């Protein structure tokens, strides 16, 4: 025990840090459909074993003999996606590359990506099980620039974008838009908020003019947006964590509650006194929806954060990427409101609007919400997926 203690004590004064840790280099030349993957021979020895004659050195012959093992080891732990499609990586030739700390096996690969792609995603898993401190240095080399990203066990996915940082930014925004477009539970909740607003009445008992409805919609949707932005950021950064089953169930519950509220009381109460030309902050009746919009918005934010795990957030600034994603979500929301609201305003005058669209539609949405709620809270699948 003594030697251990002393050794440990001495280690504290270990001044030496002019050393090189374990890195691999993945350099991608998209125009030439060519990749060079450099893996340190020392690391390969640990991963697949190269020194067949046991002389504590790896010769060129030993390296060549291990070529297929090296190739299958590396390619099994790499995945390159081009615009969402898998690239078929193939080893063309094995050579040697010298770096500052020794020689590396240089795997010259054909990327096999579909032509014309501009965005790639690299999933990297080499060597982490034998050395968690290993890093992959991934570079994208195009005519105008070289981008570099560092892959680690904590961040094994990276986004490579030929269009440069502006392109990468657009990517996160579009991911945000996409995720709200496919987020049916979020959309239904939003719709449940919109429907009663179209039935707001002015002081004279008539339907509120379109401008008034727009103002009310802006207020309520802003409350929802602010709320889900408030929780999306800390959840994405890992400061606030809620179990996803709980979050998804609560989101489903929000749809049920909002929909049932519309079935029960489809329109906000008429104004009590003469609200002449209701101005900002909008019609009183809309205020009744602001609080639930905000409250449930907080939960929906956690829901968005859940999908962020799939994205390569850590290439670049995490904060910026989350912000851009959120901006995408807002844009998507805005687009939907701009699409749906005029349609609703156009038909709200019809006599069947309230019973059919608002009540009936809300009832249908309540059923959807209940379906989701059952599936998510009980973790079952009510309808077997083919």
């Amino acid at each position, binding site marked *: 025990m003594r030697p251990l203690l002393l050794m440990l004590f001495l280690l504290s*004064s270990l001044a030496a840090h002019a050393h090189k840790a374990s890195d691999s280099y993945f350099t991608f030349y998209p125009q030439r459909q060519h990749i060079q993957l450099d893996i340190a021979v020392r690391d390969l020895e640990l991963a697949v074993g190269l020194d067949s004659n046991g002389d504590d050195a*790896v010769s060129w012959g030993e390296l060549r003999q291990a070529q297929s093992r090296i190739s299958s080891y590396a390619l099994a732990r790499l995945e390159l996606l081009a615009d969402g499609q898998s690239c078929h990586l193939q080893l063309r030739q094995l050579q040697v590359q010298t770096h500052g700390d020794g020689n590396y096996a240089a795997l010259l690969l054909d990327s096999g990506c579909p032509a014309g792609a501009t965005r790639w995603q690299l999933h990297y898993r080499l060597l982490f099980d034998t050395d968690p401190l290993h890093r992959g240095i991934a570079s994208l080399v195009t005519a105008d620039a070289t981008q570099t990203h560092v892959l680690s066990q904590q961040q094994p996915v990276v986004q490579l974008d030929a269009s440069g940082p502006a392109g990468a930014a657009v990517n996160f925004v579009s991911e945000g838009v996409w995720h709200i477009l496919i987020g049916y539970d979020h959309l239904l909740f939003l719709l449940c908020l919109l429907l009663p607003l179209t039935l707001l009445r002015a002081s004279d008992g008539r339907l509120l003019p379109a401008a008034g409805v727009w103002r009310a919609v802006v207020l309520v949707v802003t409350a929802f947006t602010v709320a889900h932005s408030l929780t999306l950021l800390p959840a994405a950064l890992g400061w606030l964590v809620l179990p996803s089953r709980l979050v998804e169930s609560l989101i489903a519950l929000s749809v049920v509650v909002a929909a049932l509220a519309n079935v029960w009381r489809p329109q906000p109460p008429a104004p009590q006194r003469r609200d002449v030309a209701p101005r900002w902050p909008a019609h009183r009746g809309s205020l009744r929806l602001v609080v639930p919009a905000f409250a449930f918005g907080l939960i929906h934010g956690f829901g968005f954060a859940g999908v962020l795990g799939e994205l390569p957030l850590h290439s670049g600034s995490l904060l910026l990427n989350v912000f851009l994603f959120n901006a995408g979500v807002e844009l998507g929301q805005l687009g939907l409101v701009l699409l749906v609201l005029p349609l609703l305003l156009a038909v709200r005058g019809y006599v069947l609007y309230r019973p059919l669209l608002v009540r009936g539609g809300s009832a249908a949405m309540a059923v959807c919400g209940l379906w989701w709620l059952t599936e998510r809270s009980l973790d079952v699948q009510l309808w077997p997926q083919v």
Partner: protein
Amino acid sequence: MLKCIAGVVLAGAVLAALPATAASGPWQPRSDRDIVQVLPQRWLSSTTRRELAAAQAAWRAEPHAVERVQALAVLYLQQAQDSADPRWLGQALALLQPWHGQARVPASIRVLRARLAQHDHQFAQALQELQAVLKAEPRHEEALLLQASIHLVQGRPDAARSSCAALQTAQSLVLGLACMAQHDGLSGKGEAALQRLQQLRQLPQAGWTSDQQAWLALITADLAQRLRQSALAGQEWRRLQALAWQSAAVRAGLADWLLEQGEYRAVLRLAAAAPQDQALLLRVAQAQQALRLPQAAGSIRQLQDRFAAARLRGDSGHAREEARFALHVLHQPTLALLRAQENWQQQREPQDARLLVQAAFEAGQPAAADPVRQWQQATGLQDAALTSLLQRVEARS
């Protein structure tokens, strides 16, 4: 966020420079018999090899057995200590993966994690692990020692003192005394500490292992040098030179002393005798430069590559070496000052203090030395070289 942007910019700059520094491209050896890479096992003694093989076999049989993990991890750590090669640490870390994210972790695993975190300069994380251990076992020797040493490295001798005191009440009286002496030597009671260390030296050395002797010699030499007792310091360093057992830390300290004495060839001999030691390259480069050897350019380039690679992968903890490199080899005092200040945020041993003040002096920014002056007054550190450096800086301002 700024760090990320800076990192990306720097990475771009590094990559732009890389083609100039790295070899031109992939190449093919001429013959199958050409050696592509010598493996680090080459430098292991046969006993170590056997030990490692046995421990690895035992571990593979039961990867979740705490004692087997500890046994193998300690061997890896010994190799890391000998060579300053972080791949050994990575391998040790891989052994601890089964306990990643678990709530109940055995104390020995926690201490290993703390050790690895400390080496990676994640001092806060290391202290957290140690506190968890000490909460359950307040007299855990290893944890107390490691905690004391982290506090000392970060320039908090008072915090170290309580850990040393706790050690003394535990069974390791000698260790506790030595720990205390080291603490005292860094907080104003240098002469008394030196006396005590020499008294410890008088104890029958038969029971001491060579690494214990090396440690005692190391802290005595450092303290004597700071108190301007160069004869005693020289004696201890010679003793270290003669010792069969050395670690990268000992060799680094020895090389630094040899450089100060102007014994450049001795530095090169030291490095040649320990080819597995990756940390000596900086001292070798200094020696080669002083001797105006042509190999100096190659060493310098190799060091630049290493530092650039470390920055690229986001490793912290190289600031001290980078500052020394910039100051003594590249002769770029402004860059050296930047790195020295970065280093000062992480660790505050006497040599870090001297480095910062010297860089401030040579960069013509005397105000940058103020934090060191305040720290020295607060801790009571006795260091003749540091004091004279501070006086020179003050004279200039």
